[in-house]
């Protein structure tokens, strides 16, 4: 039995559920938006492991029945009442119920991904320090609130610089130009991350257990996720990775405690591989072929512990 924890209307979660149905894998859906109201945990702990069951209005699963759990809590807190927002306790990320997190962190079955493992990409430079230990290059990076340091870095990188958020809060990656110099004083309020621009093709790698799926993205936009909005064409084709790069993706994912990850690479014209970040709740749907959803199917099979 597979448990899917997420927002049932969120596209990635909904798509996975549709594939579980197609593949005839038994699953139950836990709506994280209504967890406290619509579901319940019966919980005992034995030797540090949770024992018990989880139930909703029309189903109940004993933990020992579970072969795998999919956990995706990505929705921003838009559902909060205005009164809660106005109390000065703004949250950049969605919260997870503490009891549910404790269970998911400690269940013996596969959990993709355990809540505790999803925090590493809330700091991109933290992840970068880990990434570079796994054979990948990382771009020259400056994290700063110092306008003068940025001006020097801009020159050092031959004016080929991008800037983006440091945290996991979504931002559009933008190229820096001389026109941006006038805004550098804003850094006094908030630091930012600047990186040398690396030319080449973006490659997105999804790791599911020990399997990987790579897509090459050919696009002129600096941030291909917004190519359409900026009027750029975007082409995605399956990619083949060198054996050592593929192995490093799997090792990196494992080191971060992730059975499912979305790794952002760039292959330069000279064949070097840069790694930018590891998404811990990857929106793989964007990269799937609707006619051949290999990532979702691999994920479904992994959750069901079926042989690939």
């Amino acid at each position, binding site marked *: 039995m597979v448990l899917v924890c997420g927002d049932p209307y969120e596209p990635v979660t909904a798509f996975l559920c549709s594939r579980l149905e197609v593949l005839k894998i038994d699953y139950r859906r836990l709506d994280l938006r209504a967890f406290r109201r619509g579901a319940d945990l019966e919980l005992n*702990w*034995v*030797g*540090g*492991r*949770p024992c018990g069951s989880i139930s909703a209005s029309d189903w109940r699963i004993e933990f020992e029945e579970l072969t795998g759990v999919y956990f995706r809590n990505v929705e921003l807190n838009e559902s909060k009442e205005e009164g809660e*927002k*106005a109390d*000065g306790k*703004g*949250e*950049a*990320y969605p919260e997870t119920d*503490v*009891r549910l*997190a*404790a269970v998911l*962190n*400690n269940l013996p079955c596969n959990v993709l991904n*355990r*809540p*505790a*493992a999803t*925090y*590493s990409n*809330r*700091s*991109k*430079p*933290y992840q*970068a*320090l880990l990434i*570079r230990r796994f054979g*990948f*290059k*990382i*771009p*020259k*990076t*400056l*994290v*700063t*609130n*110092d306008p*003068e*340091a940025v001006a020097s870095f801009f020159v050092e990188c031959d004016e080929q610089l991008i800037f983006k*958020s*440091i*945290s*996991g*809060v979504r931002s559009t990656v933008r190229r820096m130009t001389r026109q941006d110099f006038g805004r550098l004083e804003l850094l*006094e*309020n*908030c*630091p*930012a*991350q600047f990186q040398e621009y690396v030319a080449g093709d973006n490659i997105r790698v999804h790791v599911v257990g020990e399997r990987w799926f790579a897509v090459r993205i050919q696009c002129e936009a600096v941030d291909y996720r917004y190519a359409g909005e900026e009027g750029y064409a975007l082409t995605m084709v399956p990619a083949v990775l060198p054996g050592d790069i593929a192995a490093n993706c799997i090792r990196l994912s*494992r*080191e971060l*405690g992730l059975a499912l990850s979305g790794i952002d690479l760039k292959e330069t014209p000279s064949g070097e591989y840069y790694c930018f970040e590891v998404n811990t709740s990857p929106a793989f749907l964007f990269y799937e072929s609707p006619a051949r959803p290999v990532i979702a199917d691999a994920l479904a099979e992994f959750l069901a512990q079926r042989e690939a």
Partner: protein
Amino acid sequence: MRAIQDLYRSPSRISWRLDSDTSSTRFRLKTGGASFEAEISAVFVRKSSFVHQEGWALDEATYVQAEKEAALLGWIWGLPCPVINRYPPELWFEPVESLEFWRGRIERFDLELVSTRSEQAAPSYAVVVIGSRVVWDQGAPSRLDSINDSLVRFAESLGLSYLEFRITDSMRKPQVAAVEPFPKNDGFCLSSRREIINELIGCLTSSKSAGPVRNASDSWF
């Protein structure tokens, strides 16, 4: 020694550079004077609320805080010097006070979680792990030392060299009543606090490691 409330707020200006092979920091005050990473011999991290600018909208303040927390976590992990604590991301970004969250780990290290009944009836004592040392608040019965090794291993499993607990002294066995990854020390008497401070200074100024290295096999999984 320099105490800085918010590294990323004027007059403090910090530039952290990293690439595939190196990491370096330049720190300066707007008024002049610069220092470099080599001059930083140790860092003691407290997590305080960042100062919000008057008039900021809530979503702006939330974004700024997320950026500053992300920058600070990365920076402390990039430093070659002793740091207390190099927090793992899950504790840094979402410190939890709920004992339910800690239950699995508590049991795995041969500790027992407090029951509601004993919490009400039994006295409790503050204790802190600093590296491999355990400092109990003055007056704690010496029989509580029996769990010292478990407390140290618990802290090590999180990669923390400074971790506070509150332990209830029930008749059967000491029980964990609180875990505090961001120690406040407010449950300790003055002399115990002095001992804690001296231990911390010792860790920060000696060559011994101020932070066990945690790898994936030590984590939650």
